[in-house]
């Protein structure tokens, strides 16, 4: 039987890939809904910035350690 000891990562827990990817996905989804919703022009106006921020965040955080 072999015992493997995992080295403790110094990467903060709140900045782990899984959680941050979920946050980025939520931002993209919100931006997407803002772009196609028929209720408020103001939401449509800010949809692109929201989506772009979410997509950029997703690309960055997908390189973070799990």
């Amino acid at each position: 039987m072999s015992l493997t000891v995992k080295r403790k990562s110094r990467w903060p827990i709140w900045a782990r890939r899984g959680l941050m990817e979920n946050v980025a996905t939520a931002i993209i989804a919100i931006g997407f809904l803002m772009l196609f919703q028929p209720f408020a022009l103001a939401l449509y106006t800010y949809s692109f910035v929201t989506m772009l921020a979410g997509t950029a965040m997703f690309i960055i955080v997908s390189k973070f350690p799990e």
Partner: protein
Amino acid sequence: MLNRTADSVARATPEPLARKVRGISDKGLAWLFISPTILLLLAINIFPLFWAIYLSFTNFRANRPNEVVKNLGLANYKRILADQDIWIAMQTTAHFVFWTILLQTLIGFTLAWLIDRKFRGHAFWTTIILVPMMLSPAVVGNFWRFLYEPQIGLFAYAVSFVTGIPATQISMLSNVSLAPWSIIIVDTWMWTPYVMLICLAGLRSIPEYIYEAAEVDRASNWRQFWSITLPMALPFIMLAVLFRGIENFKMFDMVNLLTGGGPGSTTEVASITLKRQAFESWRTGYSSAFAIILFVAVFGLANIYVKALNKVKQR
């Protein structure tokens, strides 16, 4: 024997060339082989993308190539994101995408499930069902325009036969409330086989022994469907939805051929607006900004989808 042949070939090769070929490492050779593809990809995909990003910040007009190009900063983006007409075009696009994907997934999966029953002649019916997908969108658009004709169209006669409304009154393409549905019907007719094919691949990949185990446990057909068939085919269904979703966001040919965005602007999807701005109004910078906004939307959606797909696959 083989060694002797190799030796004779090596001796026959001129010395400088042999040295050169021997000097290339495996990695270098790999780069040599893939470099034409990379160059083509850069020239056809990557360069136009960066060029469009650059143009989106300018007032460039393709019909006035000699005019001085002014840098407008974010003005094009601000104008697009405050334009009520483009906002409505986005809603029209969302309407199309939602209904076409819903109908195609429901009908496509049902057809795949039926074909997977392996009844007599299922191979023949699979081929028949796949025919619409193999046709050119230009051909499909043209013949559906004839089918929708109120005077001579078969579609109008079929609807008239069922509903009792005179065929001459059923004008699908010029009626404001029916025109969007006429495009949804054609797109569903054409691309449901594609969804069916992907779902069929998913259904055929489910091992038979799982169903046998479920039979032993006396699971009902309904239970087998919800607990085995649907969860195991879900990654394939999601893949089909991703492909169709991205494709339908760019839907242009069918709309252009059937209604051209009309009547009025009821079927003016984002790609039609984009084409009008780029090639009728010749606002190249403005339309580039619009194209970038659509690109980011589709790219973001694809990211979400790939993440969801990986999650489903890991289960």
